[in-house]
């Protein structure tokens, strides 16, 4: 499990267990801050994904860890040793790049052996590791090819194998699947998970694709505007996000301003229920809070006297996505594909089934 030095409500581990510990690491370019002081830790064998939109600082964080970009401040500990001042070649970290970054003038075999030669690994050990990587990355028959003679998927598998042979303390993945087409991406995503299980390598993965992050990770670190917003398991972040940004970025969420009274929130259709978080324990007087309600946590029932009216529907087979007008608000609700279909224009009653609601924290960025 990941131990995050910031607050985390699920499965925190003690900092002593961390293989990677990042404290206050920051990157500035003149007056502009690419990465605000960031704290996080990764435990041995963990697969952690840093998730965020383009330009949020996630790749900067990875490059600082790898050492190809110099940090402006903070400390990085790997396996108990400070590494932030070490050059990349002296950190026990291997990185897989979005562009594959294969050496075009070397065969696949030479690409796989490059790092081992640089680290002066004995020839027999080199051969053993390459054979193992070829097997688990399914590269049989490609060893004597040049990178340009490989397809995109094959090139990415060579890039993975090139990192695997190094048997590093930490593997970094910088959006390794984003340059591939959708079908290939899905296949390689599964392969990456299988590879992680096979090698047990501690991995930090960066992506802007939330589905990829949810499917692959033990833990997700959500970033926005150069800051770590929130960290948690995929399930915890999806179902009970703490921050407005996380709620909006992970899947579709209805973000609602709700009045809170006596520890209970009132939803726009009048349903009342408990609310947790900073607002819930506050005073007896009426307060407001922002909450997130997932479309699948709203049950719709056809009812003439219902508070909502269907304004749009989209049947996708496994589910039906509805847009429901409730007063001035348009809400999303998702029902199973097998449920009776509701017509556009039909009046419906709404019922939230995810209680207690959680008051979201506003973003700092």
């Amino acid at each position, binding site marked *: 499990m990941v131990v995050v030095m910031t607050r985390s409500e699920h499965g925190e581990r003690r900092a002593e267990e961390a293989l990677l510990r990042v404290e206050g690491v920051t990157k500035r370019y003149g007056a502009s801050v690419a990465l605000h002081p960031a704290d996080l830790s990764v435990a041995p064998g963990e697969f952690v994904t840093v998730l965020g939109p383009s330009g949020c600082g996630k790749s900067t964080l990875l490059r600082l860890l790898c050492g*190809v970009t110099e940090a402006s401040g903070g400390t990085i500990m790997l396996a108990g040793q400070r590494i932030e001042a070490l050059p*990349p070649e002296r950190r026990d970290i291997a990185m897989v790049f979005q562009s594959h970054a*294969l*050496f075009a003038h070397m065969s696949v075999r030479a690409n796989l052996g490059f790092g081992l030669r640089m680290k002066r690994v004995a020839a027999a050990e080199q051969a053993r590791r390459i054979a193992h990587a070829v097997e688990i990355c399914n590269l049989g028959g490609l060893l004597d090819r040049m990178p340009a003679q490989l397809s995109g998927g*094959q090139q990415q598998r060579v890039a993975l194998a090139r990192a695997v042979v190094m048997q590093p303390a930490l593997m970094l993945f910088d959006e390794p699947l984003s340059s591939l087409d959708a079908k290939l991406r899905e296949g390689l995503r599964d*392969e990456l998970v299988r590879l992680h299980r096979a090698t047990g390598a501690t991995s930090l993965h960066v992506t802007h694709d939330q589905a990829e992050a949810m499917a692959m990770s033990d833990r997700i670190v959500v970033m926005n505007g150069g800051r770590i917003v929130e960290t948690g398991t995929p399930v915890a972040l999806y179902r009970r996000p703490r921050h407005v940004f996380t709620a909006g970025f992970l899947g579709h969420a209805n973000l609602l301003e709700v009045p809170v009274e006596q520890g209970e929130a009132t939803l726009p259709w009048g349903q009342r229920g408990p609310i947790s978080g900073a607002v819930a324990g506050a005073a007896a007087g009426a307060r407001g809070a922002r909450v997130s309600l997932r479309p699948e946590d709203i049950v719709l029932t056809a009812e003439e006297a219902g508070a909502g009216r269907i304004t749009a529907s989209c049947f996708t087979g496994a589910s039906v996505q509805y847009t429901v007008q409730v007063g001035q608000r348009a809400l999303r609700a998702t029902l199973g594909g097998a449920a009776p279909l509701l017509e556009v224009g039909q009046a419906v009653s709404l019922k939230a089934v995810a209680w207690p609601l959680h008051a979201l924290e506003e973003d700092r960025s």
Partner: protein
Amino acid sequence: MTGHGHARWRGSWMLLPGLGFLVLLFAAPLLMGLLGSIGIGMGQGGPTLDHYAQFLHRRTLQVGLLMSIYYGLAPVPVTLVLAIGLALLMRRPFRGSALFSGLYKLPMAVPGLIVALIVMTLAERGGLLDRLAGPLGLALPRLVRDPWGVGVIMATVWKQLPFMTLVITGAFASIPQDVIDASRSLGAGRWSTLLRVELPLAMPGISAAVLLTFIGTMGAYAIPDLLGPAIPRPLAVHMLSEFGDGHPGLMNAIGVVLSVFAMVVLLGYQALAGRARRLLGGAADGKDTP
């Protein structure tokens, strides 16, 4: 004529401006030189291979070919090392780098004759360098018209350095930063990355720069004529001398030999580069599958 035939003719007409330019400025002078070398035109008597026979029998001309090759090759390693150094220096911005990157290109605009005169002023016996070294008790070796053509090499390096630097800078710039970072993260230091990754990947640009410098220098006459030893002289200087002596046929024959040699080198390079391209850049033969 079919519609398809008309279209083909129209296409051919559109090629004329480019083709005409090549014929007028390249093929025609080459053909005239070739004809001149076998005694046709320029007031010569008629078809003959005498000028080539003279070339084969005059040892000074054969040595001249070797001198041309020497003057073409000798400055290359020095220029190459300096150009790579400059290209690496200019890869990251430094204080005054914008001014420097403009200034270093200046020698490209200076004619070879002027370069030769500058080097002569500096490096001739009694020149500026000699006067500076004198009070220090140093005696400089002969640098101008010396048997090894040191003055020629100095002037050629000065003249060709900007061009080679420009091409090599472009070759380095075309290497993706991720590839360099990948090398570092796999355990290669800065020098190992330079030697094992960057230089091989920049090699197509470097080799093209070397080739163009070699061919350009091999045919130069002003610098070797002014700064090189009186004997032996390169073919380009012999050509000028034969022209001055009223032997256009022999001048053309020397020119053809020099051109053929340059073309052989160029074709050899093209064959090697093509092989390297096929090896490095062969089309992906698989579908985009995992």
